[in-house]
């Protein structure tokens, strides 16, 4: 998905000058971008703008030449099923469901992956043995990996990852980044990762300092 951004800036707080706020830039399909930022600089706000949870910004964001402010709630719902996937900073898993149920909940919207494929993903991220454990019993790092698998279980042209590896050890990060970059390449999607500092050894198209 090609994203054109023209001088956007949140209207509910004034962020410090950066390479994102009030600047014009383009994020292209198949591109991988890193948003490097200190806490409180507006990473999650930027992701929320792109995910349609928040529209309190000035400026314009275009998805494939369409202004996203013109999208209705129904458009956004369709977009979230078919085109844009996200790993929230707060993960947003359902604690009362098992890891697998959490993933299936998302997957059943499009029936994009079979259970075997899902379990294969989980195995790759070393959480397959936790498939039938309730999400609330998992460590935060394990939850992060479940959330990453969940984000991959839908078609997407834009993948937003908000500090996805903050509680994962280095060995697992290598696994995770490998899986993510493979999937993104396969789907020719745009990848945006937000990070507090670490760049996780990914070959980025561009790094923005936020």
């Amino acid at each position, binding site marked *: 998905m090609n994203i054109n951004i023209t001088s956007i800036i949140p209207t509910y707080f004034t962020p410090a000058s950066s390479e994102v706020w009030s600047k014009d830039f383009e994020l292209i399909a198949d591109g991988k971008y890193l948003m490097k930022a200190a806490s409180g600089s507006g990473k*999650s706000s930027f992701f929320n703008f792109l995910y349609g*949870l928040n529209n309190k910004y000035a400026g314009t964001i275009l998805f494939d030449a369409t202004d996203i402010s013109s999208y209705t709630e129904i458009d956004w*719902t369709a977009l979230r099923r078919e085109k844009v996937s996200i790993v929230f900073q707060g993960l947003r898993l359902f604690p009362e469901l098992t890891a697998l149920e959490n993933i299936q909940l998302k997957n059943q919207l499009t029936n994009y992956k079979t259970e075997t494929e899902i379990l294969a993903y989980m195995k790759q991220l070393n959480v397959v043995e936790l498939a039938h454990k309730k999400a609330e019993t998992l460590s935060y790092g394990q939850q992060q990996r479940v959330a990453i698998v969940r984000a991959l279980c839908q078609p997407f042209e834009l993948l937003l990852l908000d500090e996805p590896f903050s509680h994962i050890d280095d060995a697992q990060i290598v696994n995770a980044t490998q899986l993510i970059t493979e999937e993104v390449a396969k789907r020719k999607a745009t990848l945006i990762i937000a990070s507090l500092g670490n760049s996780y050894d990914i070959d980025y198209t561009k790094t923005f300092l936020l």
Partner: protein
Amino acid sequence: MIRTLLNKQIHFSQLLFFALTSSLGLGILLVAFQLFIDTQSLFSTSNDLLGNQNLIIYKDLGRNNAFTPEEISTITQQDFVKKVGGFTHGTYRVVASVSIANYSGISTEMFLEAIPDNFIDIESPEWKWKPGAKEVPIIIPKNYINLYNFGYAASTGMKQIDENLIREIPIELTLIGSSKREEYNAYILAASEKINSILVPESFLKYTNQTLSPEKVNKVSRIILDVTNPSDPNVLDFLNSNNYKYLKNDVQTSRISYFLQLILMIVLGIGILITVLSITLVITNINLLILKNKQTICQLHFLGFSRAQIAKVYHQISYKILGISILIAFLLAVVCKFTFAPYLAILQSESSSFSLVYVFAFAIILFVVLAIYYTKHTNRKIQQMTAINTSLLTSEI
């Protein structure tokens, strides 16, 4: 899976409370509706405790005691007066004779009066007369029958008669006016508890007055009034200041009837209040069910579940509960119908099981109306909750 997820937060006790409050309100509505249908005949007849009350007024004897047209128009203009009707009397002599087999004929002088048909407390299609007809229906006071049965018949050993039998007695009326004399056959249509006079249809009296004594002017010496409450001080003040007389008994009965109406109003008011409160409680209950799942609902929506998909779970819950409540309420109305039936029979209210069909139709209408209302309310709540910028997710900067 979304249903299981959303239902996890809902407790059985909460649904039970939902169903109870809903049944209570709907039950009161249906029972009231069913009672209303069954007591329709009480409300619509004129000889009832609940309708408007009649008051018959007249002037003192010994003076010219006819009402002038000015006086009648003054009475008509009073706020408390709803309807005014004058008593018309025949301007000719009447001789009635009855011939019963095995008895010598009885013959008596009598009189005829008429009041407007809408004051008559007897509902019968036979209460009519057209020029040319030879047969006239008559209404007599119930007192007359009682006097005959318990007085005359008892002491002379004659047969007692009831209202059905009395219809069979053939009466011959001879009307002797100043210019003409005519004969008619008459029969007693009914006995009235309300009006103490011998009544014939107004059309008959007008016609005979005109043909038999065309030169005589008809005077109105008694007036019947339709008032909401005859014991109202305004009514009594007006009557006293004009020196009009009335029967104290009418006013006494009206006090009781007024009291009854007052109590009925209060009960109805409380019923409506309880119903409104119960619907409010149900709405609050739906809000609670949704609010408890606020976070889950938001997350589901932001994962790509549409509002309609989420709302459907709540719609199904409220339809089920509403359906059960309506069923309970309907059963309650049926039970009440058969419990109240003997009491209503005392009030001479005609009721049939057919009224349950109306109640059932009303229950279905209630179900549809409330289901639509609850659906719209749920949709609105979920829309508010998942609206852009209001989500708890946007609190992450």
